[in-house]
């Protein structure tokens, strides 16, 4: 079992008993089940060592933020969490990522199956251009073998409602996904991910290509979504991390510098690098 002090760059601000990890913070005690955790995770592009022995916990039904300066390995780390990293030629990862207690990097684990449980939303909205709004939402289910029309219809409607897009698109479900605005497209992509009923959704700067109003809508949505799904979000926007996340991890040149409750990290960081970064003095 993990115990205090075994996480790199971290000095015992959380502890773990019987699979429950509690973050010790101010005020109400944060306690939740770990759904996803990396242990000594390393990642490379060719010989370029980009993620260095990162061990991190992500808790059920929380929003977890990953912050750090550009190029520090946030995206790479995130993409290791559902085995997307290895899809890039020359990219390699080593270490353990436990999802619900099972290592997704063990030899019996299927990347496609992993990604059904750990979905992904990308920086740029990327609906499939040859597909309608409706088809975009249900394509994952279709590939997974769901054929019944009423099931697909129900799930599409539920997911579009969940992301607050239903009223805007219910009369034009057969219009191309690309006919929507950027913010709508990103919500469509979130609905597409939700349709697979994943336990975790990884989001890589999902609002960085959007205007402030669309960004605000997506932030509200994420806070709403965490009731049913755990979210790991990479963001460059400190206010965003502070507003919506429960835990925050700070990466610097591939190392985990600090991890803790978001309130802690932003008001009372332990490491001087963290403080310098969140106060905007570098990165």
């Amino acid at each position, binding site marked *: 079992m993990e115990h205090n002090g075994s996480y790199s760059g971290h000095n015992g601000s959380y502890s773990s008993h019987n699979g429950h990890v509690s973050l010790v913070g101010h005020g109400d005690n944060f306690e939740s089940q770990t759904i996803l955790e990396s242990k000594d995770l390393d990642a490379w592009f060719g010989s370029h060592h980009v993620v260095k022995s990162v061990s991190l916990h992500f808790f059920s039904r929380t929003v977890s933020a990953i912050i750090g300066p550009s190029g520090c390995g946030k995206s790479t780390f995130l993409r290791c969490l*559902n085995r*997307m990293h290895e*899809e890039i*030629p020359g990219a390699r990862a080593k270490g353990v990522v436990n999802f619900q207690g099972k290592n997704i990097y063990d030899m019996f684990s299927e*990347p*496609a*199956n*992993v*990604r*059904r449980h750990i*979905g*992904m939303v*990308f920086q*740029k909205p*990327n*609906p*499939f*251009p*040859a*597909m309608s709004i409706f088809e975009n939402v249900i*394509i*994952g289910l279709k*590939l*997974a073998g769901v054929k019944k029309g009423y099931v697909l219809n129900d799930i599409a409607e539920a997911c579009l409602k969940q992301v607050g897009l239903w009223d805007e698109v219910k009369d034009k479900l057969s219009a191309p996904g*690309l006919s929507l605005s950027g913010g709508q497209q990103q919500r469509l*992509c979130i609905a*597409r*991910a939700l349709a*697979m009923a994943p336990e975790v959704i990884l989001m890589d700067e999902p609002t960085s290509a959007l205007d402030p109003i669309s960004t605000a809508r997506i932030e509200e949505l994420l806070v709403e979504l965490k009731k049913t799904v755990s979210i790991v979000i990479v963001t460059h926007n400190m206010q965003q991390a502070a507003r919506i996340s429960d835990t925050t991890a700070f990466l610097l040149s591939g190392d985990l510098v600090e991890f803790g409750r978001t309130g802690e990290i932003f008001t009372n960081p332990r490491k001087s690098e963290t403080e310098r970064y969140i106060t905007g003095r570098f990165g």
Partner: protein
Amino acid sequence: MSSSLSEKIFRTILGAFGVFIVLLMFSVAIFLTVGAWPVIRHGLSDFVQTQTWNPVNGQFGALAVLFGTLVSSSIAIAIAAPLGVGAAIFLKELAPARVASVFSFLIEMLAAVPSVIFGLWGFFVLAPAIRDHVAPIFYPLGEYVPIFRGPSYGVGILTAGVVLALMILPTMAAIVREIFSAVPQHQREAALGLGSTRWEAVRVAVLAPSKPGILSAAVLATARALGETMAVTMVIGNRNAVSLSLFDPGQSMASLIANEYAEASDSRHIAALMAVGLLLLVISLVVNAVARIIAKRSAAKWK
């Protein structure tokens, strides 16, 4: 020399080239039209509906060669399109970079093989193989399905189609690979992120949006097949008749002209060959134009 003056000179030279090319095209078309005038005056629709082509009796109809060209080109694209798309998927989506570069090189080399070499191979290797090993398999079927009726002499429409397929395969593969290269990586990752397998991701994220582009590539490759002359002349069998069997010898527009232009002495024969040439030119131009229109309309708007 001031930059504006040199630019002016440059533009004038380019403009002159442009005008020259247009004039050249026109002069070819006019040359053919004038040469074919006796036939055109008689009525082109009669010409293209007449099967008999008999210079000895002075009977000239283009139906057989139109048929030969269209069927051999159709066979070619029916083979080359799936192979070309398959090769492009393999090269761009599945193969490791090193394997892909070796394969691309081989395919590019295929494009560099001279037409007459394809003709030799077709005549001495493919034709006997079809005659001795492929056609006999279909003979029993041929009693019911006329397109498989034997016997095969080796050379024929099918042989020409297969040789043409090999000749247009590099074009097909290269264009389709370019189309796939234009698909952004985030599209593939979007599909993979939904739990699709590699192959499903190719289908959903790469093939689906590339369909119009693939169609245009196929039309363009067909245009190449329509006019291909040397290899076809060597393996098509050179018989001016419409026959439904793929194993029968036939004749294409290009091979007819190549076979007869030197011996044609009487003016009606020459005019008939010119008319076939004009038809071939018009068909090729139209097919090329169609390919370009499809390509333009469908150019995926990746952002």
